[in-house]
């Protein structure tokens, strides 16, 4: 059912927990148990820092069901500092400031309201990285 489908992804959605390859050290997100680089088993858990930069981005005007109320919204490919690229929405950013290479960091936000029971799905989005003091 819908609830368990989302619940089993909580570690990925809330904490960016992926995997690392035993053989070559490649970090994997999303976790996939088999290394993308060398096809060796990759089951050791790894928590990503959540820091990365924008690889590409788009603003979606024609939204799917469950997202229409948020449109237009901005989705990006974020290249994490450990290597993998993730798909996620951007938040707290002015459209005029967006650019490829922009430093971003992960935050947890509401992704959408799902299904007839109105379950709220939370997960990662990315925002411009706050300047270090």
């Amino acid at each position, binding site marked *: 059912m819908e609830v368990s489908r989302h619940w089993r992804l909580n570690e*990925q959605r809330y904490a960016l927990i992926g995997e690392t390859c035993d053989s070559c050290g490649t970090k994997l997100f999303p976790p996939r148990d088999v290394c993308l680089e060398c096809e060796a088993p990759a089951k050791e858990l790894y928590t990503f820092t959540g820091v990365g930069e924008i690889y590409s981005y*788009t603003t979606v005007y024609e939204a*799917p069901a469950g997202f*229409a109320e948020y449109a237009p*919204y901005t*989705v990006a*490919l974020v290249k994490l500092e450990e290597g993998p690229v993730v*798909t*996620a*929405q951007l938040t707290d950013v002015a459209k005029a400031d967006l650019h490829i290479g922009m430093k971003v960091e992960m935050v947890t936000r509401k992704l959408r309201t799902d299904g007839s029971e109105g379950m709220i799905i939370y997960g990662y989005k990315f925002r411009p990285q706050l300047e270090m003091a």
Partner: protein
Amino acid sequence: MTNVSIIGLGQTDVKEHWQTSLRHLAWYAIEAALDNAHINKVDGIFVANMLAGPLSGQQHLGALIADFSGLRGVEAVTVEAADASGGAALRQAVMAVQSGLMETALVVGVEKMTDLVGSPVTSALALALDADYETVHGMTPAAVGALLMRRYMYEYGVQVADFAGFSVNAHANGAVNPLAMFRNKLRADRFASAPLVADPVTLFDAAPTGDGAAAVIVTNYERAQDMVPQPIRIAGSAIATDTLAIHDRKEMLWLAAAQKSAARAMAAAGVSHDDIDVLELHDAFTVLAALSLEAIGFAERGEGWKLARDGEIGRNGRIPISTFGGLKARGNPGGATGVYQIVEVARQLRGEAGDNQVSGATIGMAQCLGSAGATAVTHVLSK
């Protein structure tokens, strides 16, 4: 070289078929293909479809369409590979006939996109993406196209207007195809300022979804010679896959599956790029047309767009593409699209393409992609 030839072609026009059901659309294409092949039965049916479940509340199309077409009792299944379903279904038919398990096989691609409108359709199209890691973040196929297009522009120093030639060519060809969804010509100077779908992808960049059905009948090469005046040989046939999500690709601007399936199909057919007279590729977004030309090997990396700029993709150009309008102007009826491509290439090789004819075409290629090339199916056809 396969031992399989095409003996029958059928297709409906692509549009919003408000009055016509999924099963009727499929039957119209099948009826035309059976007539074209001068036969009334086949040994098996491969139905290509992507979205009948979510959009029409109907699955189990193999039995439905066999029954409705008066072919009850025959072996019939659905083949699904997103918008590469059509090519994938033909591939199954080729394997069935090549192996000798079937003498004659029917492939019918059918899609009914317009029973619903708006966000449910966008959601259905997004079923082809990764539900857990793309769709949940609001991704759509157009957004995937947009992410690739922006990165392409960034890496290769290209502007939005530089992609215009693909849509202008598609609409020029669609304008003379009576079966095309859009028959208007497109002005290049309007391209970049069209309404946005997913920035920088606009309405003039993205192919429209439509309803339609197309059918192809194949049999073994020897039998085909005696059955029809102009059998078309399926010289090469190949499917390859890539990561489902683009974010898992080490080289995001390289359609690895498109390269692999094209190389395998061309090797099987024993043809080189110079031999190919006509190419139907997956121009769901202009950036996919550019990336497909690069992956297949008609352009260097980052230079696929130049073929459109330089007029090399027109019917008289070096490598004519989208000769009946492509996905952009003929329309993109999802799982049927790959079968339309085969019908169109076969009509070119038969010399039956009318105003869309590429003169002297003897070898053609069709390549369809599932989403942004997670599946790629390539067929090489020869006269």
